[in-house]
C-alpha cells in the first residue's frame, strides 16, 4: 500500500513537470511566432479572428 501511494505521488509529480514543459514549448512558439507576425504586419489581417496569438 505504501509503495502504491508513493508511486502515485511520484507519477503525479512527473506528470506536472511534463505539463510545465509542454506549456513552455507553446510559450516559446507563441512569442517567436508573434514576433514574426509583428515583423510582417499587414493592417488588412489585423481584424482576423482566427490567427494564432
Amino acid at each position, binding site marked *: 500500500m505504501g509503495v502504491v501511494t508513493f508511486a502515485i505521488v511520484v507519477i503525479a509529480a512527473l506528470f506536472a513537470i511534463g505539463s510545465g514543459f509542454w506549456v513552455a514549448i507553446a510559450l516559446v512558439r507563441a512569442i517567436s511566432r508573434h514576433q514574426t507576425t509583428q515583423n510582417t504586419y499587414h493592417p488588412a489581417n489585423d481584424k482576423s479572428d*482566427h*490567427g494564432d496569438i
Partner: protein
Amino acid sequence: MQTVLPVIVAAAYVVVLTFVALRARAARQFSEFSLARRALPLALVFGSLAATYVGPGFSIGFVGKGFKSGFLFLGIGLAYALQNILVGLLIAPRLRALKDCHTLGDAIGQKYDRRCQIVAGIISVSVCTFFAAVMAHAGGVVVSDVFGLPNWSSVIVVVGITALYTTFGGLRASVITDAFQFTAFAILLPVTLLVVLIFHIKGGAATFAGEAVTATAEGLDSTSLIEIVGLVAAFLLGETLIPPYANRALASRTTRISRNGFMLAGLFSVVWFIVMIALGVAARSILPSGTVEDRVLLNLVGSLTHGGGYALLLVVLVSVVMSSLDSLLNAGAVAFTEDIVKPFAKLPDEKALNVGRCATIVIAAIAMVVAPAVPSVIDGLLICYTIWASAILPALIIGLFIKRPHPLAGILSMGVGTFVAMSAIVFWFIFPSMIKAPAIIIPALGAALLAYALGHWLGRSKSGV
C-alpha cells in the same frame, strides 16, 4: 551574501518576466485587450487556466492542509476537478459559440436583457476586485518574507509589477506571462517534492504512507460532516466560470479548444492537488507538528535550501500569486468596460481600450488598499466563492440552457443571491462561532435558486406564456 543572492535571483526573474511581457506587446485594440483576438491555442488556454486557479489557496493553502489533514482535501479537491471538466463539456463551448461576447455580463445580457448585464457587470467587477485583494495580501506576505520589507510595500511591489504589464498588454500579456509563470511553478514545486521524497524522508515510502494515513485520520476526526459538505459545495461551485476563466473560454481559437482546455485543466488540478498535499504530508517528518498551516510550505522550502535556491522557490510562489492577480485585474477591467460603461455610452474602440486600461489601474489600486484587511487567504477566497456562486451561477447556467429565460428571474436571482451571501458573511464576521465559513454557500445558493424559480414563474404569468 545572504541578502545579495535572493535579490539577484528576484531581479533575474523580473528581467525574464519583463522580456516575456514585452514579447506579448501592448494591445492596440479592445478586442486584443479583452479577448486576445480569440486566437489562443490549446496549450496556452490550459496553461493560463491552470496558472489562474493555482493561486495561494491551491499551493500554500493545500500544502498546509496536507500537513494537518493528509489526503482528506484531495477528496474535496476532486469536486473542483469535476467542476472544470463539467464546465468544459457543457458550458464553455456554449459560451464560446455566442457572437460578440466579451464577458459573462455580455452572455447574460444576450440571454436576458441589458439591465441583467449591468447587474452581472457590477457583481463581476466587485468579485474580481476582492479576489485581487486576496491575491495582493498573499503576494505581500511572500515578498515580505523573502526581503524583509514591510507588508504594505511588498503589496505595492507585487500589485505594481502585475498591473503594469496587464494595463498595457491586456489578456494576451496576461495569458503569455501566465504560461511563463505556470512553467516555473509546475516544474519547480514538483521537483521540490521529488527531492524531499528521495533525499529527506527517513524510511522512504513506508514512512510517507504512514504519515499520510495518520494525517488523513486526524483530518477526518477534526472536520464535521457539514464542513465537508460546505467545502465540497464551495469547491464545486465557488470558482465556476469566475470572470478570468470565462474570458479564457471566450478567447479560445475554437469551441473545441475551449472545451479541451477546461477538461485538461480539470485533470491537471487532480495531479496538482496530489503534489501539494504530498508536500504537506512529507513536511510532517521534517517540520515541528505545531507549524501554522500557512507557513508549512515556506518553512519546508527554508529547511531544505538556503540563499539562491530558497529565493528561487519563493519567487516561484510570488509568480503563483501574480498569475492569478493579472487575470483578475484584466477580467475586472474588461467587465467594467463592457458591462458597466458600454451599455450607457457608445465607445469607439480606442476609447474602450483606454477605459479598460484605466479600470485595470483603479482595480489594482483598490486591491492594494483592501489587501491588509483580508482576514486570511482561505477565508478571503471562501467569501469570494460564496458571493460568486450565489449571485451569478444560477442565472448564468440556467440562462445558457433554457430557451426563453425571463429577465425578472435573472435580476431576482442575482439580487437575492448577493443579498443573502453578503448578509451571511456579515453574520459570520459578527458571530464566527455560530456558523462555519464553508457552509455559508449552501443557504445563499438555495435562496438564489428559489428567487430564480419565483422570477421565472412571475415572468411567465405576466407574459402569459
